[in-house]
């Protein structure tokens, strides 16, 4: 816990002033001692630290692709002060011990708070429940459970898991992919592009049928369901319907589904292979509008580092996923703010407050007020830069924005008073 005085920052509500962080908590700037370390934020916009509900840190297991240290450094570069670390590591985070390993390693190495996500099923195999309660009651305090990368396809198992986690206010984050409609080789949105390229199709309906099933199971069990990386217009319609009915459903969208469409894969560049796949423009527009109107609650990166050798296979075999942490806010600015779809207050909600609330992370996503945690990202709303994958703080280079000019908003990130990134 550090002390820091941030001077001259604008806030989303329009005022300008100083932010004093004492012992990691926002305190009265008038009480700041003269010799406190200072951060000049003149002309910058101060936002609460961003929270990513969907990050792959790859540690333990694939430390050549990413570590908790490198992944959280990338997170800090992107303005994040907390990330939820997905469970598909090796070993899988499906026990309290595995969750506590991630939490303790993060306390040692982290440039941001790391909240482990627990697997829903043992080994992500979709057959038996993982020890959900032990993970929840452990020091890692797991509240979000996900088999991300795989869908819990068995309806009965999904029902049981939803029922079970109500005991400790858990939420299931589902990777919605009917494994029969979109099997293991599915890698390109099913449509004219997949048909021309001869790539196995991943039809939009393979997502929305699972979303439709899950929201009804959530209603029947009185439980909470979170839909990962929504990519289709039909899923949006189902979620809208479910929210109107009062079902406890939340949803996320990734920066890359807001920014790219299916045409990117036409050169078979495996950087653009991601699951769910990039969709045509009509889906992209639908999810952007849903994010703006709140049908989709959060932007989550699905930051998925991959070593080069895992991407250098033919398209159907290459590992799916792309980096996201460092450019997420830039992409949201480009696609949502600069287009007039969302204001900065909405950005704070979708990228900080809502993800912390869904993941039950009390010390994150809070407004910049006295007594609240000193998690701040300082934003230059005018800067732009060419993205260079080799300048990444991630260990991996599968950055889909490489070579493109994007906003470059993050000037500094402060986590509990500690500067975790400064340009």
């Amino acid at each position, binding site marked *: 816990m550090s002390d820091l005085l941030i001077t001259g920052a604008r806030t989303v509500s329009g005022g300008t002033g100083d932010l004093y962080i004492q012992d990691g908590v926002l305190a009265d700037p008038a009480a700041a001692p003269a010799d406190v370390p200072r951060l000049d934020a003149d002309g910058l916009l101060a936002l609460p630290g961003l929270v990513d509900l969907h990050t792959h840190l790859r540690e333990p297991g694939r430390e050549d692709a990413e570590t908790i240290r490198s992944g959280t450094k990338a997170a800090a570069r992107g303005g994040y002060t907390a990330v939820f670390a997905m469970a598909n590591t090796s070993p899988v985070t499906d026990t309290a011990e595995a969750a506590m390993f991630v939490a303790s390693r993060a306390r040692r190495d982290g440039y941001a708070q790391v909240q482990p996500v627990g697997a829903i099923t043992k080994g992500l195999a979709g057959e038996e429940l993982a020890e959900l309660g032990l993970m929840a009651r452990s020091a890692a305090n797991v509240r979000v459970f996900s088999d991300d990368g795989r869908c819990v396809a068995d309806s009965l198992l999904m029902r049981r898991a939803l029922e079970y986690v109500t005991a400790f206010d858990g939420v299931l984050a589902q990777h919605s992919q009917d494994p029969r409609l979109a099997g293991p080789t599915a890698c390109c949105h*099913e*449509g*004219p*592009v*997949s*048909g*021309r*390229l*001869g*790539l196995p*199709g991943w039809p939009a309906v393979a997502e929305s049928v699972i979303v439709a099933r899950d929201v009804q199971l959530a209603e029947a069990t009185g439980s909470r369901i979170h839909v990962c990386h929504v990519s289709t217009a039909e899923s949006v319609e189902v979620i809208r319907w479910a929210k109107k009915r009062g079902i406890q459903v939340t949803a996320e969208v990734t920066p890359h589904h807001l920014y790219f469409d299916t045409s990117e894969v036409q*050169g*078979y560049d*495996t950087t653009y292979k991601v699951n769910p796949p990039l969709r045509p423009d009509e889906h992209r527009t639908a999810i952007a509008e849903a994010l703006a109107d709140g049908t989709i609650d959060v932007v989550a990166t699905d930051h998925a580092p991959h070593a*080069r*050798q*895992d991407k*250098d*296979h*033919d*398209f*159907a*075999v290459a590992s799916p996923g792309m980096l996201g942490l460092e450019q997420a806010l830039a992409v949201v600015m480009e696609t949502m703010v600069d287009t007039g779809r969302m204001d900065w207050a909405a950005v704070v909600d979708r990228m900080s407050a809502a993800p912390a609330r869904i993941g039950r992370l009390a010390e994150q996503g809070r407004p910049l007020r006295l007594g609240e945690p000193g998690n701040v990202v300082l934003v230059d709303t005018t800067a732009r830069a060419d993205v260079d994958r080799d300048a990444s703080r991630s260990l991996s280079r599968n950055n889909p924005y490489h070579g493109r000019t994007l906003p470059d908003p993050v000037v500094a990130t402060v986590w509990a008073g500690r500067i975790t990134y400064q340009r």
Partner: protein
Amino acid sequence: MKHLLAAADLSPAEIASILDLAEEMHAVQSRQVKKLPTLRGRTVVNLFFEDSTRTRGSFELAEKWMSADAVNMSGKGSSVSKGESLRDTVLTLDAMGVDAFVIRHSGSGAVHQAAGWVRPNVSVVNAGDGAHEHPTQALLDAFAMRRHFRRHSTESWEDKTIAIVGDLTHSRVVRSNVSLLQTLGAQVILVAPPTLMPAGVSTWGVEIAPDFDAVLPRADVVMMLRVQRERMAGGFFPSAREYTVGYGLTRDRLERLKPGAAICHPGPMNRGVEISSDAADSVNSLVLDQVSAGVAVRMSVLYHLLGGEGQA
């Protein structure tokens, strides 16, 4: 031309040039001594990640008759199963200093990727990538069809209708043929059960016909594609018998073809399933002409890629 990756990349002039030179090469095939010195000293690696008998053999003959040093390498088991990436496999062989690769791979796009990885002076020929393209097949089909048209009517492509029938979803042959035939100006009709029609086929600018019988009297060529029995397990159609009744070129359908209409099949044929023996062996069957054209067309392609100014 540097690479031959997709029929879709070929201009009408390039197609004409390849087919015309193939005519000359075809004459060489019937000689007793078939060796041409054209590619002496050049090395071509046939890198096949997927099993192939006829395509690999056809390329190998073409290379040998052009006096190139032909080396066959099986990519099977050398890549993913040993933990090596496709890129490393290609870079490793490329570093040995070859002049051209002929590559077949089960993954769509793999040959395009390889072309991006080889040294700048190395040519890559796509010998079939997944369900994407098989450009030399489309060229040899066009060669055999053109010869047939010259024998029976006019050479003009504009007044010709080619029906392609079968498992179109999983076929690289159909994608290459549609591109090439459209460039040549022919009309294409695709015939398949709806489950075997490629996604987005309505954007291809071709006619889509679920009823093979209605197409029979209109087609100048019927190209029958192989239907793999394992597709039944995927639920694409209920049985080989039902497929044959709906989409097979049976004896009965053979009789209802336009007089002089040609029959093509890229092989290997499932006689009795998509094509009857009566059709396969009929006087207008081009099946063996296609095979023979394959060597000539591949000789021509290799000449276009390697035989120009880079010649020693």
